[in-house]
């Protein structure tokens, strides 16, 4: 079943700037999908359409046109975590904020408390339940704003730059929560610049630059040099490293995208090549490396 269908969606800002032009997106139930694209590509604007904050009739949620859904029905189905946690946390305490959604949906006191505790323990913030948002660190604020949407237990979770500006630990924790949610059946849509996290948080990627430029698995997108260059996109460092290793004669058809894939690939190679890895320098090695370097230097 399709969780989200966007058909031919266009949007022009009041000042006349085109934000979106004929965007088409389809997301299956249970999928995890990322939207990447340069700054100002319209990612946030697109997300605002998905829960009817910007009214439109081109979006369907679980087969139902969003125009015909009540606010309550939309909120139950699709939860959005916005980019700036100070916009997202508007209540006096963390508890009140996480309870805001469930209370609006009319759950009784016990159910609200159960949901708040569940959501906060999921992001590891149960200890800060009575703090006021002003006293939280940026990473904690990010987690709290995720919890505030999780307490609604939406079927589709939309995240705008969830890992931006986070320290490595908070970032890893947040990615972990997202993965766990997806495993429990929540459909995930993420707008992000965090290319290194992409292989973990997305099965499929849309490249958006006012319109949908490309769609495919992370590997397909990262292998398309021209596409990357035209849209100011990067590839994961691991991906680059193995492309360099290939110049040294490492045998690798499918470049790994994450540490896990790299470990798997290296183990396999060591096992098949009799206990070690063979690298060497040929005449053309240096030229090949130069080519790889040039390929990923956008400003050159």
């Amino acid at each position, binding site marked *: 079943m399709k969780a989200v269908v966007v058909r031919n969606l266009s949007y022009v800002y009041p000042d006349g700037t085109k934000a979106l032009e004929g965007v088409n997106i389809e997301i299956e139930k249970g999928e995890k999908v990322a939207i990447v694209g340069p700054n100002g590509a319209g990612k946030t604007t697109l997300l*605002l359409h998905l*829960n009817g*904050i910007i009214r439109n009739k081109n979006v369907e949620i679980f087969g139902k046109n969003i125009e015909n859904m009540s*606010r*309550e029905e939309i*909120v139950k189905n699709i*939860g*959005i975590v*916005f980019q*700036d946690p*100070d*916009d*997202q*946390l*508007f*209540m*006096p*305490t963390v508890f*009140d904020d996480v*309870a*805001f*959604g469930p*209370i*609006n*949906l009319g759950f009784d*006191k016990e159910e*609200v*408390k159960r949901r708040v505790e569940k959501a906060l323990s999921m992001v590891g913030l149960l200890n800060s339940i*009575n703090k*006021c*948002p*002003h006293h939280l660190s940026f990473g904690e604020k990010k987690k709290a704003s995720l919890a*505030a*949407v999780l307490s*609604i237990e939406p079927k589709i979770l939309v995240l705008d730059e969830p890992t931006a500006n986070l320290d490595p630990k908070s970032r890893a924790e947040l990615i972990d929560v997202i993965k766990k949610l997806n495993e429990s059946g929540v459909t995930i849509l993420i707008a992000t610049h965090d290319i290194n996290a992409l292989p973990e948080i997305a099965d499929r990627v849309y490249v958006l630059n006012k319109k949908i430029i490309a769609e495919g698995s992370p590997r397909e997108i990262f292998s398309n040099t021209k596409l990357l260059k035209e849209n100011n996109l990067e590839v994961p460092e691991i991906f680059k490293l193995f492309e360099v290793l290939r110049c040294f004669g490492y045998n690798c058809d499918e470049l790994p995208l994450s540490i896990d894939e790299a470990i798997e690939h290296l183990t396999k190679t060591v096992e098949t090549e009799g206990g070690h890895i063979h690298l060497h320098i040929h005449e053309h090695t240096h030229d090949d490396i130069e080519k790889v370097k040039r390929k990923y230097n956008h400003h050159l």
Partner: protein
Amino acid sequence: MIEYPEIDRYADLDSILHKFDPRAKIVSFLTLIFSIVLIPDLKVALMAFTFSVFILALSKLPLSFVFKYLKWVTMFVLSIFTILALTFPGEKTSFYFISLSKDGIYSGALISIRAIAATMLVFPMIGTMRFDETIKALYMLRIPNSLVQMLMFTYRYIFVFADEFHRMLTAMESKGFKLKTNLYSFAVIGRAIGMLFVKSYERAERVYQAMLSRGYTGNPKTIADFKMDAKDFFLATLIIFFAIFLHLMK
């Protein structure tokens, strides 16, 4: 560092007033405050003042914290006292070579003592609970919803805006701006404040979007676990009785 207006900085202390039920506290203290500002007699006002000091002592709030805010009120009422003492018509008395009005001194003192006694009570009232509890108590006391929401958002975002303004000032200073008392400085600060308004407006829009995304319908409800017990009723009755008593005395 910026100083935040944290009225609930000492909400975690332990005193009889910290344990007082927030709703009962607000109702009884407000009754007492209104009663104090309506006192017609200086002796009674002095008695109320003593009672306020006693309540403040009960709250265990650090005096330095209270005086930091109370000094502005004091300075304000003292200026009124001075003006009244110098200008009020009626019987005169002289202090060295200055001619003072007796009635002026009397009503000036009455006004000053009433004002200080009443404002002093604000601290044991809202300084002894977290501000979110104050807001929840007001909500449960059926204060109009839009008023409660305004208070709630003000309290949440005053810190965010203070930070934002501070960041702007830092940015200006790091580009060589020095605050002086000249027209240029005022113009620059004026523009910065204007910018803050624009930023606030844009933030308000994003906050509203976030609220809608979580099912906001215009009537936020909240959950609070307040329980009134015999002790709360007793304390509230005592304070309200004192408030009435102040007006029964002749």
